């Protein structure tokens, strides 16, 4: 191990963390786009779901590598980053056990993803070496703005959908008394 090794690990951890927060933002964007039906078209939802799942899984790997490299550097303090990482793992895992926990519980748990996202952003700004540099703040703004917009669109009250006309053979008419 040379004297430059800590710097190399430190920079590797920073690089992994930066890519992880970018990918996490993309994953949140895809999830919001899917939930809000922002992109329509044949097969679009399935495509969004696949990319949402893939980006989430890769983000988890990057978070693990980000923390693991810090361990190699001999420096890791369990704070927001570690808490957020574990929460992200639990929330992602809940998708694969939703058959057992039920869709209602899973949906409730999945809403906490946004809290994890906020934790991750707080970790980047508060603890990241580059967290308060102008380029990082510009990058975070560019990543977060579409998500805030998509979330606002999702929270807006939507017009009720027109009821589908029932096919005449769907339910037999009640017998006249």
């Amino acid at each position, binding site marked *: 191990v040379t004297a430059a090794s*800590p*710097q190399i690990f430190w*920079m590797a951890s920073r690089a992994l963390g930066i890519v992880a927060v970018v990918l996490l933002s993309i994953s949140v964007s895809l999830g919001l786009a899917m939930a809000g039906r922002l992109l329509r078209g044949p097969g679009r939802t399935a495509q969004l779901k696949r990319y949402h799942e893939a*980006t989430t899984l*890769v983000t988890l790997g990057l978070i693990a590598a980000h923390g693991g490299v810090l361990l190699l550097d001999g420096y890791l303090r369990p*704070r927001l980053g570690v808490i957020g990482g574990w929460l992200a793992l639990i929330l992602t895992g809940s998708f694969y056990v939703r058959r057992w926990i039920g869709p209602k519980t899973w949906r409730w748990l999945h809403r906490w993803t946004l809290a994890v996202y906020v934790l991750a952003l707080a970790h980047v700004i508060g603890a990241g*070496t580059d967290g308060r540099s102008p380029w990082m703040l510009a990058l975070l703004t560019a990543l977060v703005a579409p998500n805030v917009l998509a979330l606002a669109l999702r929270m807006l009250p939507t017009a009720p959908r027109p009821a589908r006309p029932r096919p005449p053979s769907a339910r037999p008419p009640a017998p006249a008394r």
Partner: protein
Amino acid sequence: MTSPPPARPRPGARARRPSLPATVLRVTSAALVATVLVWSALFANSLRTGGEPAAVLAQPFDRSAGPDDQSDTAPAPATTHAS
């Protein structure tokens, strides 16, 4: 004899969608390339600036000597940072 012409996809046939593992692989490769690029940029920046900020931040807290032990060549005391 001439070889038969290659089979053309039917006009109405759907393109086969990539599976989840294939998508994960694709995203992983993109993320790794991005990581290497970011790492290179950080490394180049540290070389440009003499590596001082990174060197200071890379020091564990307890390694910094007390005020009495500092010599002229000792590094500046580490600023607090958290992971």
